[in-house]
């Protein structure tokens, strides 16, 4: 689709958030947050704990409604649209916590992911095998998801999303708890998804080394507000970011 558009600046705007805001009672988790996602890029969304990253995911995927602002996906205003609608348009997200069907087998997990797009059991099973091969789950198809090793559980949550054939894939801390080699394999997968499958990826991640390596561009949230934006190099040199985020980590 947009396989060639993998330059740093990416292709056309595929998602635009305009002055997004979300309040929980007295707490404003996200406020005045505007950003653009361009076709074919891997955009990193970073920020300290509680900055509002997962809330942003919930907003753009329709799991919660914004208190204010506008959301445009592929040229269509989807502010307030349901999660089902947004997912069917091609924006699919994973979850930071409870990211899979823990009581069901790996096959059934991915099958659920494929259920809406693929018609008929055979087509769905084809998709399951394809996605399982990509995510290194081919040898674990009959394992109950909750019994998988942690690293494979993270891959399974990505596999579920991929089975729904997204154009925009939003990953909420997909690398948490992965071992060294697993991180490399996951980053290779992201790159392959972008180049070979034309996906656009929005990545929330605390692993800074991985973020620097994987992302074309970064946006930084702090206390629900946009703090900085730019290439990984620019952001890592940004004084405010170092103070708010990197500084706190060291």
């Amino acid at each position, binding site marked *: 689709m947009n396989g060639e558009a993998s330059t740093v600046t990416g292709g056309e705007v595929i998602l635009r958030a305009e002055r997004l805001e979300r309040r929980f009672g007295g707490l404003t988790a996200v406020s005045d947050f505007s950003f653009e996602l361009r076709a074919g890029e891997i955009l990193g969304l970073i920020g300290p704990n509680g900055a509002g990253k997962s809330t942003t995911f919930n907003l753009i995927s329709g799991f919660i409604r914004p208190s204010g602002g506008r959301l445009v996906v592929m040229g269509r205003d989807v502010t307030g649209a349901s*999660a089902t609608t947004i997912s069917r348009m091609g924006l699919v997200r994973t979850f930071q916590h409870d990211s899979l069907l823990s009581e069901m087998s790996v096959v059934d997990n991915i099958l*659920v992911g494929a259920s809406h797009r693929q018609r008929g059991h055979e087509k*769905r099973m084809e998709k399951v095998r394809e996605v399982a091969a990509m995510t290194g789950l081919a040898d674990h198809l009959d394992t109950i998801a909750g019994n998988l090793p942690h690293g494979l559980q993270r891959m399974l949550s990505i596999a579920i999303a991929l089975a729904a054939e997204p154009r925009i894939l939003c990953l909420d801390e997909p690398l948490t708890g992965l071992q060294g080699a697993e991180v490399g394999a996951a980053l290779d997968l992201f790159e392959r998804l972008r180049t070979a499958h034309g996906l656009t990826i929005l990545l929330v991640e605390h692993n800074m080394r991985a973020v620097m390596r994987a992302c074309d561009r970064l946006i930084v949230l702090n206390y629900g507000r946009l703090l900085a934006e730019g290439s990984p190099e620019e952001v890592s040199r940004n004084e405010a970011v170092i103070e708010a985020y990197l500084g706190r980590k060291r």
Partner: protein
Amino acid sequence: MQIRSPGVWACVALAVAAVLFALLATNPYHASLVVWILTNAVLAAALRFVLQIGELNIATAAFFGVGAYTTSICAVLLGWPFWLTLLLAPLVAALLSALFGWVTLRTKGPYFLLVSFAFTEVVRLIYTQINVIGGNSGLVGMFPPMAIDAHYPAFAAALLAAALFALYGVERSDLGRLFKAIRNNDAIPRSVGLNVVFLKVLCVVIAAAAVGLAGGLHAYANNVIAPSDFSYFVAILALAYVKIGGEGHPMGPVVGAAVLTLVGQRVAGISAWENIFYGAVIVVALLAFPGGLIGLAGRVRGLVRGGAR
């Protein structure tokens, strides 16, 4: 989808045996007992079917009653043909359950359980208030046509068994997996473009169609129905069948219904004691073997195998 396990063939054989027994039994009481057991099995299986999405549907009792009243009204008051009255029972129950589900399944939490309870009792009270359908005393005089009458228990048993297999078939299909996914973590199906509210309603509708048919068949089997036959207690008994038989296995409701219905025949009549008896059996059974009789059988088999090694 392929269902070719030996267990399924054993169930087909069992269903055929039940139908043949109902056909050939010389004692009409025995034949009607088969129908009664299978009716209870359908009620229990339908209750378990909705448990797949994590909801306890007390209105299973209401949709059973809706099926019975639909058939009876069409047969006795309107004089419509037998087949039509039987066809309408599941259809009307399904339609009403779709409305009921659409309104009640949007929220999470204990609301559905409470609303399904209230709905069941309200529907029952409505029957008692309408004179044309007999008020408190209900309707009398639903008879199968002459051609079927002599073999009606076998006919009903065959349809009830078919309903059980239909529920099982859906459970084993991709749709059944979606129901289980909703119970496990409904955010996942939502995140991949599935309409969870629609799927929940569909689950309730399929179960209601099955008990609606059972209600229609019950009306012809009993020849008389009354509002009190369709109180929430029908669903509580169905829950007992599920729990006694074993919720984890599709045959659990059938085993539970068979055992409790047969045991119930022994204590029937001493009515004050009947409910106490059921209550005691349920409590003891749940404490002694949480997986139900089928879970118990599995554990015994495991022990025997383990011992043989």
